[in-house]
């Protein structure tokens, strides 16, 4: 019996979120005396796949089939369900990322297995913790079926890498052309930026910046730190910033190691998307801004004065190290 982790490859590399999921899978396997197995769909390099051994995966089932190079929820569900049977898996682990969010509920129905979406830590006493009410509370979920599916929230745990190498085994699921229902017409990737949900460091700004022309200092800081940029809904709504940067209850939920909020009031709906960040820094002219109550560090001051100094200090620090 085993724990099976669904691992995704992007541009030849294992997705960071998938690596976290594989680590979660291995830890769960270890705790339950099971084997840690991964399944990968689509073409990928053998060396990259074998490197899953570093996070404790002993075997990778690899369907090296070009039809899987694009995500198709129906075909993927069939293939992963078959891998679950092949590996006699009692746990299925995936990342709670864009594809995992759709694949997991489909698998739950197909396997009739209880599913916890967005687990934030390893299971304890048979319970799975996840955030609810948009981060305003957490809940411990119990799964009532023998087979269990867990989707791990990105950035919830840091994989510890060892020296192992996984065995890669060819896997040929019985998926017919008719199971592929989506035809990909094109992709539009924002190049040169870090996907917000995968970023360790995030620099974010709101209406306090007065206008889109003032984002230079935010982008500069993001560049210096290797951070992603985010924004409040208020500024995405008026098109000062692209919609994909909007975080909060109706935008993205993120949990980076560092979230720097410049000129954002900290409305409850905004906090809902960012309050599980490990360290929160707030820069705001208003000492009464609600964001200060959720912050670890703060400066009461004008962004237009503070940010140039902040950037200069970071530049100096980076130069010294």
């Amino acid at each position: 019996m085993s724990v099976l982790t669904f691992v995704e490859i992007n541009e030849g590399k294992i997705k960071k979120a998938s690596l976290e999921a594989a680590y979660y899978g291995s830890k769960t396997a270890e705790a339950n005396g099971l084997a840690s197995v991964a399944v990968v769909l689509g073409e990928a390099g053998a060396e990259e796949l074998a490197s899953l051994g570093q996070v404790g995966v002993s075997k990778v089932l690899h369907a090296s089939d070009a039809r899987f190079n694009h995500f198709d929820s129906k075909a993927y569900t069939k293939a992963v369900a078959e891998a679950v049977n092949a590996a006699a898996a009692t746990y299925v682990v995936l990342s709670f990322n864009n594809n995992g969010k759709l694949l997991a509920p489909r698998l739950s129905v197909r396997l009739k297995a209880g599913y916890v979406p967005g687990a934030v830590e390893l299971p304890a006493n048979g319970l799975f913790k996840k955030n609810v009410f948009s981060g305003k509370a957490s809940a411990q979920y119990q799964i009532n079926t023998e087979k269990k599916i867990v989707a791990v929230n990105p950035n919830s745990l840091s994989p510890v890498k060892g020296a192992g190498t996984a065995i890669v085994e060819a896997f040929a699921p019985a998926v017919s052309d008719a199971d592929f229902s989506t035809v990909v017409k094109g992709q539009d990737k924002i190049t040169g930026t870090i996907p917000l949900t995968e970023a360790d460091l995030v620099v974010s700004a709101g209406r306090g910046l007065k206008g889109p022309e003032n984002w230079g200092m935010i982008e500069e800081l993001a560049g210096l730190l290797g951070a992603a940029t985010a924004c409040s809904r208020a500024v995405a709504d008026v098109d000062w910033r692209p919609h994909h940067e909007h975080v909060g209850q109706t935008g993205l939920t993120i949990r980076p190691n560092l979230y720097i909020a410049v000129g954002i009031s900290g409305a409850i709906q905004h906090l809902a998307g960012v309050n599980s960040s490990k360290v929160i820094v707030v820069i705001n002219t208003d000492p009464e801004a609600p964001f200060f109550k959720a912050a670890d560090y703060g400066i009461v001051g004008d962004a237009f004065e503070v940010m140039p100094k902040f950037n200069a200090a970071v530049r100096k620090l980076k130069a010294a190290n």
Partner: protein
Amino acid sequence: MKILVPIAKVPDTTSKIAFAENNTKFVTDGVTFIMNPTDEWYALVRACELKEQQGGEVVVIHVGGADSEQIIRKALAIGADKAVRVDADPTDAYFVAAQIANHAKTENYDLIIAGKETIDYNSFQVGGMVAEFLDLPCVALVQKLDVANGVATLKREIEGGTETVEVKLPMVVCAQKELAEARIPNMKGIMGARTKPLAVVAATADDKLTTIASYALPDKAKQVKLVDKDNVEELVRLLHEEAKAF
């Protein structure tokens, strides 16, 4: 085109979250309930727009008690033609999806448009589950949806960008922001909603695959460490050395 939109009822975004009975029950006293924003603003409005362009019918389905009537009437006021309420407590996503699939399997919908997730349990499950129950294609995190000649063209979010895909109907779509502009129901809509059909049906028995054992609130409010605005370098030092954030 015949479109089904599942709608959920959630606590208003500003609600105070509290638990009782040894942290096993969410306290609903004093909580205002609303239609889940993603369902209302994006899924329902886009469904109504497609119907207005191409003809057809929009049906909303809700799993919940009689106290959900207000939300259902709002959906009808925004533009849905009729509603179905499955009279049951929506405690488990699998259970809810099974009810919706059970209704949809005999109705031949061209499209089922769900919101990507609810703002209470944030679980992102119902759309995908309904698709699997009905063995239909499904695309999630959809920001753009057009239909022509029985084929849907969709733009979905992927990590670091978007992807455009085509899918032959029927299918399930999980909507997110940008798919449509929120609508405020007008007087005519509100008046009309009163007489639109709302069928109440019993739940089909189905298993609940998960249970919430307990809830917890986050630890007490953090104590912020304030640094003087003339000492920005000190903040950067703290972030580097104390918080080890970079």
